[in-house]
């Protein structure tokens, strides 16, 4: 068998940088709602980031920022946030932002 495929993983197992190659599926396209943060309420506890299934929360030093390319809009972060600092807002409100 002649392999024409360009190897994706350098290793035997599907290992790679979880922030890059593993997040190859653009789950952002699934989203109908997005979490919006009210920074004045956030105490930087990190629970939103821990619970986020695709692990798309970025640590910004005093709060967490959603990577919208991968946020699938499940709302778990908003549900888990003890400070109610995250609110899920319909994507329709952001259509002009692309």
């Amino acid at each position: 068998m002649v392999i024409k495929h360009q190897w994706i993983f350098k290793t035997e197992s599907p290992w790679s940088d979880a922030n890059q190659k593993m997040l190859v599926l653009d789950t952002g396209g699934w989203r109908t709602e997005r979490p919006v943060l009210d920074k004045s309420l956030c105490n930087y506890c990190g629970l939103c980031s821990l619970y986020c299934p695709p692990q798309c929360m970025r640590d910004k030093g005093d709060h967490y920022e959603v990577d919208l390319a991968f946020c699938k809009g499940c709302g778990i972060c908003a549900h888990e946030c003890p400070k109610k600092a995250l609110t899920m807002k319909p994507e329709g409100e952001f259509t002009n932002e692309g």
Partner: protein
Amino acid sequence: MKAKKGKISVMMGNVVAANVARLCRPEVVACYPITPQSEVAETMSGFVADGSLDAEIVEVEGENSAMNVCLAASVAGARTFTATSSYGLVYMYDAIMQASGYRAPVVMINVNRETPGIHAVSSGQQDMIATRDAGWVQIIVENNQEIADQLIMCYRLAEDYDIQLPVMLNYDGYYLSYLNEEVEIPEQSDVDAFLAPLKNQPQRPRIIPGAATGCGTHGMEMGYVEARYKHWAAMDRAKKKVDEIDQQFADYFGRSYGGQIEEYRMNDAEIAILASGSAAGTAKTVVDTKREEGIKVGLVKQRLFRPFPEERLIAALKGKKAVGVIDRSVGFGWKYGPMCTELKAIAPSIGNVPILSYIDGLANLDITIPHIGRVVDEVNAAAKGNAYQAVTWIPME
């Protein structure tokens, strides 16, 4: 260099497994007890309690967690050990697929026992069969010494940089798990020496705290195809590796098991029996008596079940006039026993001779000398051109 003579003791199969697992120095052990495996879990915990094993024992609430613990520890770079059986094995079904998909070199003892559906607390290989397509290497051994020796070889195989696959070592529940037999347990220094070549290999990938590495989380489209292709190719490489490691074990410890298969009196045999596990020991006795009666029969003991030892079986069976396969499990969906079905896949390469399927030894019913004697006689008759029954459930007749 040769190994020193090990200490000879009389030990139960499960205790042998634990003693040798200890010598392989696993760093993380997570076992949930289940009959007929429990002494493996108990003895391992005892070793950690008395200080003779420096390992982390993770107390789990079930087998699914046990496998997930081993998987996680393995991708963190640890050597891991677990043991299970039957209900326990199927309870970790998703986790064993994770382990093989992540290419985590977990070594697991599976003490063969019948599976759920019929609550049989008794021996049988149905559990192993139920997990045959989970991507693990599966090896079956015949006696307590082979448990000891093969377990050491399993670590060499699983962690080999060219292989990186989880390995399941199977032995018959009840027949071996509770059998007290004379066993030579190697010296610690010799087990260390035999496993030492792994240290000279490149470091396999592992999770490093602080570095955001991940394994197996997503493999969409070509990522999936590539991971599966590499896994498939590694399974194929594992066959020769099993033979090589067996040869190296023989050179060092002086005991050999034939690698993928053991051939017993096969050289000049005209007909062959294929069996596995403790029943292969009985079959050797039958081969000897039948030889005295003038029947040129040999035995192929299948040791490697996954990957299927295609090339070795073809080489051993090519030109034989008929083959009888004794399965200790049922192949739902096929008429024949699982091992027989697989052997039939290579029938064109061995000469399209009669292949007779026998189901025996389910639920602790012994695969006796008369049973195997009958198999030999029928295979012999089939070789002479007589009509034969394609499948025989021996206990049902």
